[in-house]
């Protein structure tokens, strides 16, 4: 039940796009059609579900203060947390590479759907951001971290497919010249953000 609450919370209340603006760049660049946006959203979700738990383990057994005691009690005073960024990003880049190879070998169909997006994802701030939030919030176990990753990914998927649908419809409307393209996307995202704030009132 706790996990379910966490899932709902990370999809709607702490939505990656509307509450934290993570992954905005690809969100704005790729959201022209629903099909490609859904592909990118799925790829992001997929990568998040894998990277967040892995980074959780890295953080717990390598980085946080006193984390090295499992090797030897003498290392209890070692604090490697300043290495967080470099290690997290290296792990993410490596996992994305490995995932791409695995998907290519075992499920070529999935690869043709997600393939072009995977290399982009290593530098998507939603991925690194999610791992950093995971570290900041101090989840209790790997399961929670995985659910948090899943929820954030689904929230991102929801946001990007929604705006893509709106932008597809927008093609038929008259927009002031200066606002066409990026400008209107910003404003729509802002309005969607206001709408999503309604979820903040949910007590879980």
């Amino acid at each position, binding site marked *: 039940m706790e996990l379910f609450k966490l899932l709902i919370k990370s999809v709607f209340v702490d939505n990656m796009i*509307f*509450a*934290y*603006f*993570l*992954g*905005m*760049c690809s969100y*704005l*660049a790729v959201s*022209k059609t629903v099909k490609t946006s859904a592909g990118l959203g799925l790829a992001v979700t997929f990568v998040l579900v894998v990277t967040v738990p892995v980074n959780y383990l890295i953080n717990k057994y390598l980085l946080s203060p006193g984390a090295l005691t499992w090797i030897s009690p003498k290392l209890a005073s070692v604090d490697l947390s*300043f*290495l*967080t*960024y*470099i290690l*997290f*990003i*290296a792990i993410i*880049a490596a996992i994305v590479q490995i995932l791409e190879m695995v998907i290519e070998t075992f499920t070529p169909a999935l690869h043709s759907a997600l393939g072009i997006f995977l*290399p982009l994802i*290593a*530098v*998507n*701030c939603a*991925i*690194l*951001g999610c791992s*950093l*939030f995971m570290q*900041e919030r101090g989840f209790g176990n790997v399961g929670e971290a995985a659910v948090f990753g899943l929820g954030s990914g689904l929230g991102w998927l929801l946001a990007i497919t929604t705006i893509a649908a709106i932008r597809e419809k927008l*093609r038929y409307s008259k*927009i*002031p*010249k*200066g*606002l*066409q*393209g*990026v*400008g*209107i*996307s*910003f*404003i729509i*995202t*802002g*309005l*969607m*953000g*206001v709408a999503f*704030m309604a979820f903040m009132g949910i007590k879980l």
Partner: protein
Amino acid sequence: MSNFKKLVIEPLRKTNPVTVLVLGICSCLAVTAQLKPALVMGASVTVVTALSNFIISLLRKGIPSRIRIIVQLVVVAALVILIDQFLKAFAYDVSKQLSVYVGLIITNCIIMGRLEAFALSHGPWESFLDGLGNGLGYSLILVVVAFFRELLGSGTLLGYQVIPQSFYEAGYMNNGLMILPPMALIIVGVIIWIQRTRHPEMQENQN
């Protein structure tokens, strides 16, 4: 001189990384509820962009192109760690406010974008200037957005009260919506609108 002008001044207006190229939006919006974190963030990104452009440009002949992304990420991450430690030591409260967004400078697309598009094909000094210009262009938008959000949302600038008390007594209210995340997007949207109305050549054709 003209080179300097072109590389540093142009990104402030004509090729602004945020409003024209639409890069580095994420952190740009999240840290702009107040002016002070926005200034710190802008300065940090400028330093990282300029230095990483410089370093990658020095290394550009030695990096095999297949692994260049990883090399770039490592250089940028190392610089960001320096900035992060520096902020923790000398500006602890701002560093707490910025929280994960300092770390997210690593994945800021402006940096990767400039590395890929400029530093890999230009000399170190030019790349340094290009990084500086793009960092400043980013900071400019950050400061403008933060200025309006803090002024209208809290009635303060850099923490000092600027809207006089008599206004509040006469019934003026802070606009609480300005503090909330969605407003940042709408303000950037409006900035883009104003900029593109003034420079019609930047307008996008309707699909």
